[in-house]
């Protein structure tokens, strides 16, 4: 059986912030349908790798975006950040601004916006100022804004890290629903439980280097993990229990 076609590939990718090497010689291929979790301690390079895959950062080495097969067009991306930046405008306008920025025809805005807000359960709050919404609602609105773009790949940067447990569950359920629709997901997370629930593949990073890149079940059974990654997983799970 052939492996799914690649969407983004990195070869010996390195990112520097001034004199700090944030990512060092990473080789990684994102495939269509992947649900990839990037895990690792603080400062390990998760967010940097996520931004690099998205194309928000320049790098040394090679980053290639491959055309979708069989569509023969480049994949489209959207990203959900840990703390969403919402414009000081009504909630629905924030979704429409995203559509406008992506060049979606104006005639489609109303329908796409309504569908996206419906999907995240914010239709009744469409006219409310976005900054007046609670943290969980803001994250759901940001998810609606991203989802309305109908991306092929959705990047999630610790999407539930700043939410309370209830909001965390809501957002996680929405992400799981999007993943079930077939969107390729890449997410950075501290939460190994979340990685286990949502991901099909896990990459573990430490100090800018990739320690492991394994299918989720192999990652969590621990047998194939290098020592440093095993220690990280053990520490995190002990902390979580």
């Amino acid at each position, binding site marked *: 059986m052939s492996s799914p076609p690649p969407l983004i590939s990195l070869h010996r990718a390195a990112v520097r912030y001034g004199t700090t090497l944030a990512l060092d010689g990473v080789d990684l291929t994102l495939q269509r349908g992947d649900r990839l979790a990037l895990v690792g301690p603080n400062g390990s390079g998760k967010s940097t790798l996520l*931004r690099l895959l*998205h194309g*928000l950062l320049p790098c040394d080495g090679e980053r290639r975006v491959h055309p979708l097969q069989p569509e023969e067009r480049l994949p489209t*991306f*959207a*990203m959900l*950040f840990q703390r*969403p*930046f919402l*414009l*000081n*405008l009504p909630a629905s306008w924030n979704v429409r*601004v*995203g559509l406008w*920025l*992506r*060049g979606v025809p104006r005639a489609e805005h109303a329908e796409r916006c309504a569908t996206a807000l419906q999907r995240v359960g914010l239709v009744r709050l469409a006219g409310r*100022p976005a*900054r*007046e919404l609670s943290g969980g609602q803001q994250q759901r609105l940001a998810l609606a*804004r991203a989802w309305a*773009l109908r991306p092929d790949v959705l*990047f999630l940067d610790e999407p539930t890290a700043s939410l309370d447990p209830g909001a965390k569950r809501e957002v996680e359920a929405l992400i799981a629903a999007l993943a079930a629709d077939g969107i390729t997901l890449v997410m950075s997370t501290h939460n190994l439980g979340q990685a286990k629930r949502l991901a099909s593949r896990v990459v573990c990073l430490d100090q800018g280097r990739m320690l492991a890149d394994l299918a989720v079940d192999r990652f969590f059974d621990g047998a194939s993990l290098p020592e440093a990654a095993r220690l990280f997983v053990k520490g995190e799970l002990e902390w979580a229990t």
Partner: protein
Amino acid sequence: MSVLSESFGAAAALVAQGDGALWRTVLLSLQVSGSACLIGAGFGIALGASLATYRFAGQRLLVLLVNTLLALPSVVVGLLVYLLLSRQGPLGALGILFTPTAMVVAQSVLVVPLIAALTRRLLLGSLAEGGDQLRSLGAGPGRTALLLLVHERFGLITVLLTAFGRAIAEVGAVMIVGGNIDGVTRVMTTTIALETSKGDLPLALALGFVLLGVVGAVNALIGLMQWRGTRTPAQAFG
């Protein structure tokens, strides 16, 4: 002491009676400074937003220049505009020296660096918070600037009110390019300077009161905008 109290009394009477000359001067001041702020806003906001969101060669030098121009004395602006608009100057053919138009030009030049520097500072704050997210949505520098200006519209009003306060309270530039001609280019600040030198303290004081009142109202508006900007709309409007 009696001169001072008599002057206060006379000034209060002038304000209360609605003295025509006094209110014409006040109206011209508001027109000149208001127009200057509108024109200065066009250039200053565009410059400040560009400096915040675009990256280009010489950008840091331009930021340094704009920040330096914040300290530009109004008399120097008046002198430069005078040289431009005088008969021998490059814009002398326009024939607008010693008219309210020249005063608008001078005050516009005065407020552009202030508006640009404050706008840039305002947008940089939002850019740090949401620049990556807007870029992720596909916004280039131009659209980022436009969206952040909309996002920071209350802060931007504060910037414009600050510029208006600076314009209406200055005396040097309008004195030089306007000439302080009675009934034509005489504004509050130039009248105060003139009447004080002539010894007509009541009119000078009356205008001083009005000027203080205008600046006070502007400051109150700035305070209101700042208060509003730090609150969510629901909090601000109950």
